[in-house]
């Protein structure tokens, strides 16, 4: 029955962690999974950000609302991801939406706090002069507050992104887990080369996202590079 064994690459037979043949044979699967992982991460964090900003804005005006927002997101954050996805399942089914909503909710928790802290770190006299010149609340937000809060907001985005990269794998329970799908299958049949590859790609993705965000931040905040 194992007569075919000599056709099988040695590192498959030995079940090695590092197996060049695997990377070659499974390139399409790895690429697909990575691409899925990336877009799930990006969409989730963006969605979280889009909710976090208005929530942060409402919260900073109103301490009661702040307590509610912060408390609510805290509760969401303590729900294990598996449970959260299961809760969403009846509504959104076996779709990427389930995963995205879940992940967006988690990143929201992180982001909303940094959005609030970031907006609070904007110097009072700069806001006052903008208001005095006739900036509307909207313009002030977009052109003054968000840019100046950017370093702090970006710190949140970076934590949220890294955390989302790690959490996307859980999406495999509804078949949208990016590299998590490969990981889960591989753990199931002890396919070490695949476990290794998927894990490494996860880490690489997280680090790449993080460095990319640092770069974006440097590009977006040129004024923070102080000349001496």
């Amino acid at each position, binding site marked *: *029955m*194992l007569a*075919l*064994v000599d*056709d*099988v*690459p040695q590192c*498959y*037979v030995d079940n090695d962690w590092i197996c060049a043949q*695997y990377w070659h*044979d*499974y390139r399409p*699967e790895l690429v697909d999974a990575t691409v899925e992982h990336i877009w799930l991460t990006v969409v989730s964090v963006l969605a979280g950000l889009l909710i976090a900003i208005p929530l942060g804005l409402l919260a900073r005006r109103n301490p009661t609302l702040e307590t509610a927002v912060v408390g609510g997101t805290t509760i969401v954050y303590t729900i294990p991801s598996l449970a959260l996805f*299961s809760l969403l*399942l*009846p509504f959104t*089914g*076996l779709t990427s939406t389930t995963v995205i909503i879940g992940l967006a909710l988690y990143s929201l928790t992180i982001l909303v706090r940094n959005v609030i802290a970031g907006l609070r770190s904007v110097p009072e006299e700069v806001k006052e002069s903008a208001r005095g010149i006739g900036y509307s609340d909207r313009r002030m937000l977009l052109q003054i507050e968000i840019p100046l809060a950017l370093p702090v907001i970006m710190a949140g985005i970076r934590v949220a992104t890294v955390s989302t990269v790690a959490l996307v794998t859980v999406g*495999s*329970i*509804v*078949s949208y887990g990016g590299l998590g*799908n490969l990981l*889960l*299958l591989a753990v*199931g*049949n*002890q*396919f070490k*080369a695949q476990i290794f590859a998927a894990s490494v790609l996860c880490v690489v993705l997280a680090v790449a996202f993080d460095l990319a965000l640092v770069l974006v931040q440097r590009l977006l905040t040129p004024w923070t590079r102080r000349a001496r």
Partner: protein
Amino acid sequence: SDSLEDTGSGDSTGSADKGSVTVGGQDFTESQIMAAIYQKVLENAGYTVQTKLVTTRDVYLPELSKGSVDIVPDYLAGLTDFLNSEANGADAPLVSSHDPDATLQALKPLAEAKGISILPPSDATDQNAFFVTKDFADQNDLTTLSDFAAMHQPIKLGAPPDCEGRSDCAGGLTKTYGFDIKEIVPLDFASAQVKDAVKKGEVQLGETGTTDGTLEDLGLVLLDDDKGIQPAQNLTPAVNSDFIDANPDLEDVFNQLSAALTTEDLADMNVQVDLERKKPEDVAQQFLEDKGLL
């Protein structure tokens, strides 16, 4: 125009596109292979197919009911027990048994209530099974669990923690076969650890599945469940009722497939995927070609 397309496109031999189908399944090797087989069969029949592998049955079953998943390769008793406890509560008496026909009869009304149709099961079955080392079996001339139990020696059992008391596990082994189990060492089902533990003699009996193709190579051997404590886990297509009503021609296709599939095929394909690291799609393709189903 049909013939033109037939000759024109080599691989997608289907005639006109018959619409899209979603195949569900779980994300362990065998389910993955079966899903791949279903996919190929369906594509061959002219459907556009999407496969969604999820972690657990309770994730895909509501979707199968709703019709966002159309067809799932499932296990007879597993599905029966699931639907039974859903319909009648967790503590309802089991309606699955060692007998596939009886189990199927019990399953059908439960499934129909959920809008799920069960196509005739295959003979191929993946049920839990217990194994010992081949040396031990040869020395003591064991082929069945009854043979082992008859030795009346206290044993350690390697099985998942929830084994205790279950009628298809420790409970059945003690009550039905009369084993004297000293200890259940918690080891994952069909895991490398449980096989290792049996080989090293840390436990005398380990739990795995009938389609575990790795045993022979490791010098391990299954003992027959001669008293039938394991419910019948025959592979059977579970289909959304509306979907099968709309596509009655599929019944034949799947009946052909189920008729051709054997437990050995499954074990063999599992080995190809789990040990030789072939891709499930390729293994499925090869299988279908070998059986002349494509």
